């Protein structure tokens, strides 16, 4: 409650028809409480489907700590249709939203018709209603679709439960794996395994390919791997070291770093005609490029001022602009999906933390509190950042919602996990 520190501005006008105005700037630190009622089932369907589906939705919704739930055994009733639904049953339990649903059998082949509704208890209205046709085998996918719709309705943001995460696992000193999994950590797939380091994974905008850096031939090279076929192609760019590939928003080119004799500069590489165009030319280190969502600008790290700082370059006019001035280490910048803010690694008294900054202001806001945080990646809806950090010598992935209400860490894997890359949304 100490957090409720706010500015009070009152206006008592001296006009006769004056009206007092009270400003509310700060919201509550509390989370919305959602009740996930076990779905009702039509007779003849296996009983645990109803519980399974509501539990899946609950797990999804709670994944990033954005909501609070109501335990099933605390519920006063288990309605499965609007007729049995009484707002006061939920109001007394302090519930903000309730999810109910019903599974109906379509035919004997296991096809199901799943209907669901979402209620806003405080406003006493139904805010969402829907139906999905599916089968017994893909209950998990159906749950994800329903979770996305509920999430979108409550938060007004795109649902992200069907997104994926790419990351690098270093299970022992000589094993490096390029992996992808669902955002909840399930269905892990090893794309590529090597004795030499792997770095910098990045998803193509169509979610079909991943670009990354591999040292398998003794030096840093960029590969593009097709997720469906598993085929790998190296980019034969000139120079000693190729690194930090990032896809342009249209998927037609990569921004990457080529080093001629220890002078890394940013280049644009067109995938179709394999041409390299120079973007920066400076004797300092220029690296870690990333595109703005409108693909007009590229943010990059440069030590041209003596310490690593973030700069922005217009890809057409090649005009550069320095973005960070405070602190002696600001690197690996990425734009928010709305293009108005950036997030990056901020070095502060020997600690390296994830920070954000509005492009329009100078103020740097630190989000994390551990000391070796790096490689932040943002959810496609711009609400959650996942980053790599360390606990002793073991790397794991942590996450934080941008309102700072929730922190979480992803399930621990065998070995050191690093360099998360959040996939785009399915189009």
């Amino acid at each position: 409650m100490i957090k409720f520190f706010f500015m009070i501005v009152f206006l008592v006008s001296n006009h006769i028809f004056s009206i007092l105005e009270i400003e509310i700037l700060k919201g509550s630190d509390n989370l919305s409480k959602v009740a996930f009622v076990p779905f009702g089932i039509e007779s003849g369907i296996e009983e645990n489907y109803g519980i399974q589906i509501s539990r899946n939705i609950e797990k999804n919704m709670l994944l990033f700590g954005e909501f609070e739930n109501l335990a099933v055994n605390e519920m006063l009733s288990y309605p499965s249709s609007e007729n049995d639904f009484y707002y006061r049953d939920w109001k007394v339990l302090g519930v903000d939203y309730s999810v109910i649903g019903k599974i109906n059998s379509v035919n004997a082949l296991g096809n199901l018709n799943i209907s669901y509704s979402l209620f806003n208890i405080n406003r006493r209205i139904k805010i969402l209603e829907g139906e999905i046709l599916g089968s017994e085998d893909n209950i998990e996918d159906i749950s994800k679709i329903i979770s996305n719709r509920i999430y979108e309705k409550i938060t007004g943001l795109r649902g992200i439960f069907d997104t994926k995460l790419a990351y690098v696992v270093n299970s022992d000193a000589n094993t490096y794996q390029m992996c992808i999994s669902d955002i909840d950590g399930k269905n892990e797939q090893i794309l590529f395994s090597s004795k030499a380091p792997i770095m910098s994974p990045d998803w193509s905008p169509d979610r079909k390919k991943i670009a990354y850096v591999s040292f398998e031939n003794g030096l840093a090279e960029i590969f593009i791997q097709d997720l469906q076929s598993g085929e790998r192609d190296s980019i034969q760019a000139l120079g000693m070291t190729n690194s930090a590939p990032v896809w342009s928003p249209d998927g037609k080119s990569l921004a990457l770093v080529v080093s001629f004799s220890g002078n890394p500069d940013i280049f644009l590489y067109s995938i179709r005609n394999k041409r390299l165009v120079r973007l920066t030319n400076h004797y300092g280190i220029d690296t870690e490029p990333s595109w703005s969502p409108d693909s007009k600008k590229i943010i990059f790290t440069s030590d041209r001022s003596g310490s690593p700082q973030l700069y922005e370059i217009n890809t057409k006019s090649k005009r550069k602009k320095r973005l960070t001035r405070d602190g002696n280490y600001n690197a690996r910048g990425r734009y928010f999906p709305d293009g108005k803010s950036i997030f990056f690694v901020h070095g502060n008294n020997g600690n390296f933390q994830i920070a954000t900054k509005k492009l329009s202001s100078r103020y740097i806001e630190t989000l994390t509190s551990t000391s070796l945080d790096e490689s932040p990646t943002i959810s496609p809806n711009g609400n959650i950042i996942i980053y790599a950090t360390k606990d002793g010598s073991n790397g794991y992935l942590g996450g934080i919602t941008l309102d700072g209400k929730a922190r979480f860490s992803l399930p621990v894997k065998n070995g050191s996990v690093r360099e998360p890359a959040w996939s785009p949304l399915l189009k």
Partner: protein
Amino acid sequence: MNKALTSLNTFFLILLFLSLIFSMFSIPKLNIDETQSIKVNFYELIQEDDILFDSSILNTTIKKETKKASVNDKKAEPSEAEILSKFKINKSDIKNEISKIKLSKEREDILRVSAIIQASISSIWIKPNSLSESLIAKVSINLAPSGEILNFDLIEPSSNNSFNESILTAMNKMTFLEEVSFLDRKLFEENFRNFNLVFKSSGEIE
């Protein structure tokens, strides 16, 4: 003759102008913190104070004192005038002081109750996550003297739907603003019978 008239005219105009300026400065001033800005209907207050002074004990005590002075020492007539002039100054000072006290008391009450209302709404308003744009929405509220919310209306919705929804949800959660029931009735009618809440999102990441 004409010349004299016009010069008189201009003289009066200047006088009027000067008196206007003077009246501007003679309005009692309030000391208000930078974070709080308040404007009060001064005319009303001054009139009230005049009424108060006419029948006030202060005036009678002044009279009594002057009587006492005259009885005790007849030679003290010039000093009586002195005392009177002193009282005159004191009277205006006291007038100011009282209006200030009245004002600050009223102001304090309004500020206190407003702060409580603000805190209680802040504690239940679940702001939608990561709104990167700055948004403003205005809700008008009708209160009963008991503090019950009789009616509320989103009079100026923002452009963001989920922001508006979150405000409506919060307002629905709130049924009573108890604090106003302890207020002076007049103050309540003037300020809290009908007031506005302005919900703001600066778009900053918190």
